């Protein structure tokens, strides 16, 4: 058992991808600041990669007091073995009290492996972060049972307390690029034979199309009501005028109209955009679990009893094939007005 008092400071792991910070890492510096201040700790960002000094600077601009930077050619691409090795060595040396990790696929890959190596507690996919009044521990709040139940979890006896936190829950602060940059450089090697997986190829979904539902501010999703694959063109058109990412229900994926990477819901992605437009989606619980925390939900469905209307802020009962073209046209008009 480790001695709790030896562990200080709140760390945020800022994930680097293709030379840029994942949004969720910068988002977490915001609640990270609040929690660190309550416990009078420093807020420290951790950045791992190859040539990622600029990400360290960005983390300072978004609120970190200091950055621990680990660079090396072996960290150019993410690998479980390499990144867990780095985080484990850093934790051993600096002893942070808390570690926040974005709940991206790579974040959810590295965190349990690290927690198990350290033998500490890990709470997955949190949507709420607070400090427990009585104990000063982080109170991690997370959904379970497909979003039907929320649980608040504590990790009272081991350190660091670790959690992965869902993208899009917390807002980034306004960056201040004039802040003083404090970077601690650490050199940690992982021998080549210590990395047992190798990235052979990266396959982008469709040429020119970005499918990043996790970071999308607006999502337009289509479901069974579209009737056939070709009709997704209407969804894409609406998405285009809104600057949105295309999502889908499980039914549309199962029907083979669109690939799984677009799927929102329990067996797909959990999303939390500012605007979620559900077109021809009835709103099975497994879909609602993936999107009902969106800021504004707009539903279009011909069945007035469809459960999607229970979570919708705005809804239209009607034929989406008639409604969507009008919507597209009107939104284009509104956009033009705004430019003028």
């Amino acid at each position, binding site marked *: 058992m480790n001695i709790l008092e030896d562990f200080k400071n709140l760390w945020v792991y800022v994930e680097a991808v293709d030379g840029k910070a994942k949004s969720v890492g910068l988002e977490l510096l915001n609640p990270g600041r609040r929690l660190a201040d309550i416990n009078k700790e420093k807020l420290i960002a951790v950045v791992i990669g190859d040539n990622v000094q600029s990400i360290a600077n960005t983390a300072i601009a978004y609120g970190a007091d200091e950055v621990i930077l680990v660079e090396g050619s072996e960290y150019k691409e993410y690998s*479980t073995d390499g990144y867990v090795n780095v985080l484990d060595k850093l934790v051993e040396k600096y002893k942070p009290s808390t570690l926040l990790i974005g709940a991206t*696929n*790579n974040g*959810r*890959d590295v*965190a*349990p*492996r690290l927690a*198990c190596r350290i033998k500490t507690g*890990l709470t997955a*996919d949190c949507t709420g972060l607070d400090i*427990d009044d009585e104990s000063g521990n982080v*109170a991690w709040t*997370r*959904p*379970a*049972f*497909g979003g*039907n*139940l*929320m*649980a*608040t*979890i*504590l990790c*009272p*006896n*081991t350190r660091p307390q670790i959690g992965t936190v869902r993208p899009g829950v917390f807002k980034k602060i306004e960056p201040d690029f004039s802040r003083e940059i404090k970077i601690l450089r650490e050199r940690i090697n992982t021998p080549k034979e210590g990395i047992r997986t*190798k*990235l052979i*190829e*990266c*396959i982008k*979904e469709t040429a020119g199309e*970005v499918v990043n*539902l996790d970071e999308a501010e607006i999502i337009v999703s289509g479901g069974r009501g579209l009737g056939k694959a070709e009709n997704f063109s209407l969804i894409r058109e609406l998405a285009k005028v*809104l600057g949105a990412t295309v999502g889908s229900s499980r039914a549309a994926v199962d029907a083979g109209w669109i690939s*799984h*990477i677009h799927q929102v819901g*329990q*067996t*797909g992605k959990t999303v939390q955009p500012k*605007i979620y437009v559900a077109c021809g989606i009835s709103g*099975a*619980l497994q879909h609602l679990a993936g999107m009902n925390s969106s800021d*504004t939900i*707009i539903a279009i469905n011909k069945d007035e009893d469809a459960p999607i209307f*229970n*979570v919708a*802020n*705005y*809804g*239209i*009962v*009607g*034929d989406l094939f*008639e*409604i969507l073209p009008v919507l597209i046209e009107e*939104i284009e008009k*509104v956009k033009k007005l705004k430019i003028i």
Partner: protein
Amino acid sequence: MNILVCVKQVPDTTEIKIDPITNTLIRAGVPSIVNPFDAYALELAVRIKETNGGIITVLAMGPEQAKSALKECLSVGADKAILVSDRVFGGSDTLATSYILSTTIKAIESKTEKFDLILCGKQAIDGDTGQVGPEIAEHFGYAQVTYAEDITVDGENLRVKRENEDHHEIIETQLPAVITVIKTAYEPRYATIKSKMASNKVQIPTMTSIDLDIDLERTGLKGSPTKVKKTFVPQIKKSGIIIKGKTSSESALELISLLSDASII
């Protein structure tokens, strides 16, 4: 290839309803199913076996009734099934659960042979943590790949197609490895009447803490570093503005004006 698939029996969370008066989950009458992601993992294992040969063992931790989930796995391609079950394991979090499962796997290996590949679903649909798979990998010190959507055998190694946020990856991994599986293109096969009847007759062995070389301090509630402080049912908002009984263009125009008034667009 000697493959182990870890499965969990879970309540079908899509069938769970909220009691509107007590505001709690109604669990009674909710069917128990094989965790859907574990079913995809098993289907991948069966496909690997069909092309490369091998043996598939399924392992579940849970109460006695979890044997029905294991029987279901036997009816769709698993060769052997084992349940690990003990009251002292109750209340285990993911770290404790992964320790119990790893210890059990080692006990199984000591009687037969080592597993080349351990598959898990990416997460269970009740806990939704996705942590047990990577934690098992750590207990063994094996290579791991998460979010796999396809696996092919490539000589001594595996090629895994992995889903990431906005792209797919092809990852080569050494064996032994732990791989966690998402929903794949391969829908789990159905049991036949014959395979169902055959699996129903199987006596599934149960291992308890007595059969394991296990430190009970690392299991159950006391072996779990995370503690549940409270649970609550989230409030689902229900006061939206629904436009109905109008023509399509009237509806669309009304929606635009509502969104515009609320500064949403």
